[in-house]
Structure formats: C-alpha cells, structure tokens
C-alpha cells in the first residue's frame, strides 16, 4: 500500500492507470485520479472574486427584496422608508437642538444635524446588519451554495438604497432651510461611494466575528452609540473642544475617525455655511484611505473563513 502511494503520487496525473488499479488507492488518490475536487473547500482569492461577480444579480435582488419585505406588513408600506429617518432626525432635533441646546453657535443647525444623523445611520445600520449577516441567515447559508460575501455586501447595498431615500428627504429639508443647490453638491457622490466601501469592509469584518460569536449582536448597539457621540453627529466637535485643553493624540483620533470624516465631507458638500475651513486636514485622503483599507482588509478577512460559515 505504501509503495503504491509513493509511486502513484508522481505518475497519477501523467499516466492513465488501468481502471482495475482503483482498489489499491486511498480515497484522496482516487479523487485526484478522476479530477474530483474537495467539497466545501475555500476557493483562491481571484476565483472567489470571480464567483462573487457571477452572483452580482443575486446580491442586488436580495438587497431590494429585503428592503421591500421590510415594511410590507405595515399599512403605510414603503412610506416608512422615508418616515423613519425623518422621525429619527426630529427626535434628535428636539433633544439636542431644543432641550440641550447644542445648536448654539452652529449655523444651519437642522441641515447640520440631519446630515449627521443620516450619514451615521448608514454606517451604523451597515455594521449592525453585517454582524447578523451570517448568524441571522444560517438557514440560507446551510441550504445553498454561493460565496458567503454576498450576504454582508447585499445587506450594505440594502442600507445604501435606504440611505438614498433618506438623501431625498435631506434635499427637501436643505431646500426648505434656504440652501441653494451648488456644484459642490456633486461631491456627495464620491463621498457616498467611499463610505459605502468602508461600510462594506467593516460589515464583512463584523460578519465573520458575528458568525463565530453571535453575542456581538447584543453588544454592538452600545458600541455604535458610543461611536456616534464621538463623531459629532448632533454637535460640532470643534465648538465642544474650543477653549479646553485636549491632548494631541485625542485630536488626531477625533480627526481621523472615519464616521466623522464622512459626515464632515457630506456637510461640506451640501451646506454652504460648512466651509472648507471647518474640515479637518487631509480629509479626502482619510476618506479614501479608510475606504481602501477597510475594503481590502474586510474582504480578505471575511474570505479567510469562507469554508467555516454555517457551522452552528
């Protein structure tokens, strides 16, 4: 047996051994001889990307199906896609704008606040959906064969579609508060694309972690809320820090915070009074860098565990 295995190891591919010799082969050698591949093995990275591209229609169909199904039981139906972000903004306006008064010193506070809420919600819900992308869809993962990265990407795409509804609301609010469309509004598109790539990368990291530790879904709301307060969603970080002594590294951290970067970019694009002077230094470099870093790291990190998703 051992001699057979040693000799066939080299010659099995080149020579076509007579069929009767199957008896002496181990299952692995027989599999090799007949060109069988191991089931459930992780494909290489280029092959994985190719498979993912082949499933692009599934990704988009799954995203819009989820979005449609979300409110289909409600009487108002898809109206909630617009009403939910609007109500969110209203709650934050009442608490932070009226009660606590963070609006002092911030011109155009309502557009400022609503932009912040919508943009942060995009990242927040992408991360939350990503955390549950595998663990919440085990039935699907265990029933059908497709690159698992479809799921986190699909959920992020769904959040992007949701955000586009919100942006429609935002445009109306902007016009209502006297903002006039300018060329700088076009900057919203590259900013959104970069944020989407960043969100997707982060969601893929969370999807792998959440697949292994489903408890994360319970923990994440607290982490996300902490992140939100540190990102200047409903107040201006500059104004809060003004006149206080802050260590240098904290300032660097606050400026590099990806959520704050994307929020600031969107405010800069849409709100006239939010001038370039209010942007942290190198903001576009940070926006692009975060997208690239998170996108690549998240994708590779997710792919590394591809064959293990679906185990309880």
């Amino acid at each position, binding site marked *: 047996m051992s001699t057979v295995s040693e000799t066939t190891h080299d010659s099995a591919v080149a020579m076509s051994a007579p069929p009767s010799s199957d008896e002496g082969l181990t299952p692995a050698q027989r599999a090799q001889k007949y060109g069988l591949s191991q*089931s*459930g093995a992780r494909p290489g990275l280029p092959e994985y990307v190719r498979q993912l591209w082949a499933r692009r229609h599934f990704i988009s169909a799954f995203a819009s199906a989820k979005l449609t199904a979300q409110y289909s039981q409600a009487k108002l139906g898809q109206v909630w896609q617009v009403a939910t972000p609007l109500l969110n903004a209203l709650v934050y306006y009442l608490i932070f704008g009226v009660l606590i008064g963070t609006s002092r010193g911030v011109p155009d506070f309502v557009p400022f606040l609503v932009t912040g809420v919508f943009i942060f919600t995009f990242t927040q819900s992408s991360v939350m959906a990503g955390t549950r992308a595998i663990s919440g869809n085990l*039935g699907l993962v265990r*029933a*059908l064969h497709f690159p698992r990265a479809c799921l986190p990407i699909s959920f992020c795409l769904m959040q992007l579609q949701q955000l586009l509804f919100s942006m429609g609301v935002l445009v109306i609010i902007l016009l209502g508060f006297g903002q006039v469309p300018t060329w700088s509004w076009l900057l919203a598109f590259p900013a959104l694309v970069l944020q989407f790539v960043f969100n997707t990368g982060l969601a893929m990291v969370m999807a792998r972690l959440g697949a292994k530790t489903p408890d994360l879904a319970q923990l994440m709301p607290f982490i996300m809320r902490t992140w939100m307060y540190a990102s200047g969603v409903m107040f201006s970080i500059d104004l809060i820090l003004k006149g206080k002594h802050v260590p240098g590294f904290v300032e660097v951290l606050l400026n590099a915070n990806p959520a704050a970067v994307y929020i600031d970019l969107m405010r800069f694009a849409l709100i006239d009074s939010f001038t370039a002077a209010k942007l942290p230094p190198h903001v576009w470099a940070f926006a692009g860098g975060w997208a690239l870093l998170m996108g690549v790291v998240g994708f590779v990190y997710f792919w590394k565990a591809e064959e293990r998703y679906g185990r*309880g």
Partner: protein
Amino acid sequence: MAEQKNGIEPTKAAEARIPTVIADDLHIVYRVYGTGAGKGSATAALNRIVRRKPSTGVREVHAVKGVSFTAYRGESIGLIGSNGSGKSTLLKAVAGLLPAERGKVYTHGQPSLLGVNAALMNDLTGEKNVLLGGLAMGMSREQVRERYDGIVDFSGINEKGDFISLPMRTYSSGMAARLRFSIAAAKDHDVLMIDEALATGDRSFQKRSEARIRELRKEAGTVFLVSHNNKSIRDTCDRVLWLERGELLMDGPTDEVIKAYEKETGK
C-alpha cells in the same frame, strides 16, 4: 453489515464506473448554543460564566460519524434511516454546505441540494420569489426569465387564479411547497440531492414531480434522494445507504437494504 467500499454489484462494466462523489471517513459535528442546561435565568447563566463552566451553554451534536462511500456516475442513491439519523446532514456535507469536523468529501463539479426554501421570503410575491430563488441557486437573470413561465406552469399556482402576484404568506402550505419545488427543480445539476421533496403537494403534483425527478436524473451525473417513503425510493433508486445514529449501517442494492430496513423497523 454490507461491505462498504464496493457495496453495490456493478451493473455496468468496471471501467465505466467513474466516481462522482467520494466520502472519506466523514465526521460532522454541530455546535448548538443556548441549549441552557438547567435554569434559563440570567443569574444561572452568570453563575456558569463565573464558575467557568462554558460547556453547559454549548452542546455538540455528533451527527455523522465516520461515513465512507463512493458514488458513481449514473447512479441513483437513496438515503434511509429513522428521523435524526443524519441523512440530511450527510447531504449538506456532500454539498459542501456544512464543514466537516474530520474526513473529506470529494465531488465532481458542484453538487446541488434541491431546496431553496431558505432563500425565499414570505413577504414577497411569488413572482419575485421565483427570480430570487433562481438567482440564489446560481442561475443568471436571463435563465430565470427564460424558465419563468415553465416554473409557474409546473407549480400550478395560477390554476386557481392569479396567485403568483400575491405575497407568499398568503399561500396555503401546499401551494408554497409546490412553488418551492418548482423553483428548485428548474435548474440542471451535476450531482443532485433531493431531501424529501416528493412528499409535497397533492396527488397530481406528486406525480408531476416524480416525473421531473426522473428527468433530472437523466441530466445529472448522480442523484441522491432522502425519503421516508420506501416506495418512492424503490421507484427511483438502484442503490441505498442506510444511516442510523450517524453511522452507515448498510450500503447495497435497493431491495436488499430496504428489506433489512423494513425488518428492523417492523413494517
């Protein structure tokens, strides 16, 4: 116990037997969380964490224990065994959907499990579910569009009015099962695995689906069928694997294994 390596008498000449699936000492272990041995209260859970007894929350289910077999092109293999004997788990492992704890499965091409239940959404219309299910199985948009009418006709959903444009939650369980089977059966497969699909729908639909399965068998290299209906196994399979408690009890020609199985279960 039948000999496991070459259980079936070769019906064709030996050189024609090309393996399509090789399972080599396959073990599958499920890990289930939150089975909560003892009280389900928060204090009990905290107590377990403090005392470092993590094992109580996680239970391991050794669903398949060391199964080896080789399936050949053109074979139709039935899987039998009592409930919870690991039949469906074995199929999922062959499809590459469940990772193996130990051992390996080698397959020709990508085996497909006939089932799209999980991809469908009850809140969507039947129409959208046909598209979604087809895409989930790896069909292209054009393929789904091409076969759309065939799928709807086969399911017979529209026989009693325009039901395909209603959300699936409004379907009766029989109608939903018929649509699911129709979507799943619309694709061609290399190695096809069917999990108790024959039991869906009314009498006339069952006949139609059996015919469709025979068709699929012709197109597919190898067909696996899990069923509790010995008659449909006899009708469609030429070889049977009998699983019990995750172990391969018997592997041989249909008549022989079913006879032994019926004797054991007292039918």
